[in-house]
């Protein structure tokens, strides 16, 4: 069999695989449809180039395979052709880059009305902190973390007192409202990634990173850690529940604030001291 036939088969097979593949994007559940569109655009342009280059190659090996005495072209250079190819490629590249940069610009500029959610990552689990009524998260530091202060909130920062603490890996979100995810890590790199939302960003100990998206489909989603963080990396999962405004408000009311937590601890302590005293 002529090798050209097999190479042709590879090209045709790749295209057919792409058309009929059962493996494809998870259904999108956020505003980042534009990312999918840019990918599809890249598929069209890039796929086109792949097909053309490979077909030209296959054509050449069919037409010009070795024959004694075949007349061969001797043309070391062709400036015109080289120029055309350079320009065509440049145009293609710009066509891909421009929309990509526009989408990226949206990605790094968070809308003003975004809800803030702080995601805390550690080896190997997640917890969350939401700003309380003041809408501002209190400042926090890794070194301040204790059993009584699981997020390391600065005790003298008044903004921190009403922060809502969720010591659990299930996060609830309102549908159709942008969220700004603020990422903190207590130890190593992690990454809070929900495939259906498309967006992701690493959590880095020592600094706060962010990204935003707007969930727009009610449902439950699995969170996967997408930055290698040690042996437990593959098991570092969590859950996001996207729900209607009403359900979300109900959920948020049940959550504890930092001052609730302090109060609870104080009452525990006073109980303890009472117990200790009565034992005297």
């Amino acid at each position: 069999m002529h090798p050209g036939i097999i190479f042709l088969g590879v090209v045709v097979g790749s295209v057919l695989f792409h058309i009929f593949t059962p493996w494809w994007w998870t259904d999108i559940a956020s505003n980042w449809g534009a990312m999918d569109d840019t990918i599809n655009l890249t598929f069209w342009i890039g796929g086109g180039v792949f097909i053309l280059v490979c077909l030209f190659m296959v054509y050449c090996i069919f037409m010009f395979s070795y024959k004694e005495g075949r007349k061969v072209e001797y043309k070391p250079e062709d400036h015109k052709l080289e120029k055309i190819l350079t320009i065509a490629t440049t145009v293609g590249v710009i066509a891909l880059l421009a929309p990509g940069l526009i989408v990226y610009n949206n990605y790094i500029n968070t809308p003003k009305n975004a809800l803030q959610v702080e995601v805390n990552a550690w080896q190997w689990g997640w917890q969350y902190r939401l700003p309380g009524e003041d809408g501002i998260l209190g400042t926090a530091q890794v070194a301040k973390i204790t059993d009584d202060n699981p997020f390391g909130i600065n005790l003298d920062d008044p903004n921190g007192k009403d922060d809502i603490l969720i010591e659990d890996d299930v996060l609830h979100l309102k549908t159709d409202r942008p969220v700004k995810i603020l990422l903190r890590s207590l130890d190593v790199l992690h990454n809070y990634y929900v495939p259906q939302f498309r967006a992701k960003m690493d959590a880095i100990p020592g600094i706060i990173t962010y990204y935003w998206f707007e969930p727009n489909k009610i449902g439950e989603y699995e969170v996967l850690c997408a930055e290698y963080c040690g042996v437990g990396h593959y098991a570092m999962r969590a859950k996001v529940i996207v729900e209607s405004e009403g359900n979300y408000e109900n959920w948020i009311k049940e959550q504890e604030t930092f001052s609730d937590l302090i109060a609870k601890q104080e009452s525990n302590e006073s109980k303890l001291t009472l117990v200790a005293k009565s034992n005297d």
Partner: protein
Amino acid sequence: MSDEYNQKNTPLEAQSSETMTDISGTTSKDIDYVRPAELPEQDLYHGHSFITKWVFCQDAKVIGVQYFLTAVFTGIVGLVLSWLMRLQLGYPDLVPFITAEHYYQFVTMHGMIMVVYFLTALFLGGFGNYLIPLMVGARDMVFPYVNMVSFWMFFIAVCVLMASFFVPGGPTGAGWTLYPPQAILPGTPGSNMGIILMLASLSLFVIGFTMGGLNYIITILQARTRGMTLMRMPLTIWGIFTATALAMLAFPALLVSCIMMTLDKMLETSFFMPAIIQAGEVLDYGGGSPVLFQHLFWFFGHPEVYIVALPAFGIVSDLISVHARKNIFGYRMMVWAIVGIGGLSFFVWAHHMYVSGMNPWFGFFFATTTLIIAVPTALKVYNWIITLFRANIRMNTVMLFCLGFIVTFVNGGITGIFLGNVAVDIPLSDTYFVIAHFHMVMGVAPLMVIMGAVYHWFPLVTGRMLSEKLGKWHFWFTFLGAYSIYFPMHYLGFIGVPRRYFEMYDSPYVASATGMNEFITVAALIVGFAQFIFIYNIVTSLSIGKPAGKNPWKANSLEWLTPEVPPAHGNWGEKLPVIHRWPYDFNVPGAKEDYITQTTPPSEVMSAEVEKT
């Protein structure tokens, strides 16, 4: 010291008297005139004992073979590790001893071995050493002793790396990127001796490699024979030269980051370590930056992929030209593309860091520079396929591997445009799309070139041909097998399967990936075993292969034109060759034969209408 070529050691005056005759006896009209040599010839060291001839040898050709064999050995270790990983991914409960710890150690060692100890050492240490002096017409590298030390440093680096498999805690499982803080903290396997040995081994590698690299660069710049202008060098040499220059500039970044991380690990400095609380305990670190490491790592890491790719580009250009019996199309543009890609490759590193938490504004800059590189890269691809147009293509094993390279490289190059375009990278980064992309473009494609190059130069090194029949089987298994491993794998990335996952277990939406993972594993095992056809072919051909004779492929470049085949120590016998043209004069109109070697003077091919090069 040199006792073999007495005449070769001509003192400077003798050379200049030759110059005199050149000038006085001829005028500039003499079409065979070549500028005289400017430097006296090099003294060579001739080993006589077994040890100095074959072990601590100073002949670049032997050093090249030593590099090659050591690199191939590490490559086989890397291959076996990949089987173990694939078994775990395809059939999770089949091999009980693969725990998560082991899996991560395999991933790390596999990745590091393949990129650094296998591909880099093979292309530059192996092909570089063997081919540079031969192709530029030198007797050896300019510093043969340093060259010998370079190999032995590499050898020690490999030993240290392999030793880490046997230390308590095993080798590091930090991922080949070795990102701190994780790499040196207890949550990662091998975070004590494992990581220290890895960092030590890399440092040794860089030191050894610098010795070799300086040799390659200076040999190419200073020791070319008469008439071998830069623009007459084979593209192989251009590729190796540029890659080595990149290595000299990029490896220092790796070396310093290795040293800094070693200090963080052993002396508890905090270059890369911020305040950390682990298992409820505040560690003794504070103020360092993990992102700084990533910048240093990728400042090395991105040029590193071109350190692998550029020699492959160069070699494949030469293989295509020889076996298509046609000059490479657009030689000058190919040279500028290699140099341009090399230069630009220092300005794109942060495309590996789009979701790393660096300043988000960097994304615009690095996406733009990355896509700019696509232009010269695409031009190279066009030039390869245009070279095939109206050529006379021998469909032998070498050519098949070149064609396999074009297909896989174009495929992987295009997925690179996905990942370089920052908005597209965000959903795809750290998924199997990335794994598929870089295996296609820097795993399979360069391997195609390496294998093609072995079929091409085996006759030169050993004097015997490899079996074409076995070669074709080897090619089809490898090419079709590797393509069916990595082409479908991109689609796992679309589903969102993250890389470096020991197990997906109960994720609902990745259940559909199970079947594909099994298929990929089977394909990976087949491809792996197909390499034994190759090894068998090499081993048997050493003794029963058809004798190659001189210049069996009818190539033009110098390495085939030595007085003895395989070339002897000193390469050129008594007189250095003199070069009259580029190495791509195939099928020149008016010429009697379909090739004109680089040493053929114009007066011998008067009727040929060559372009002046």
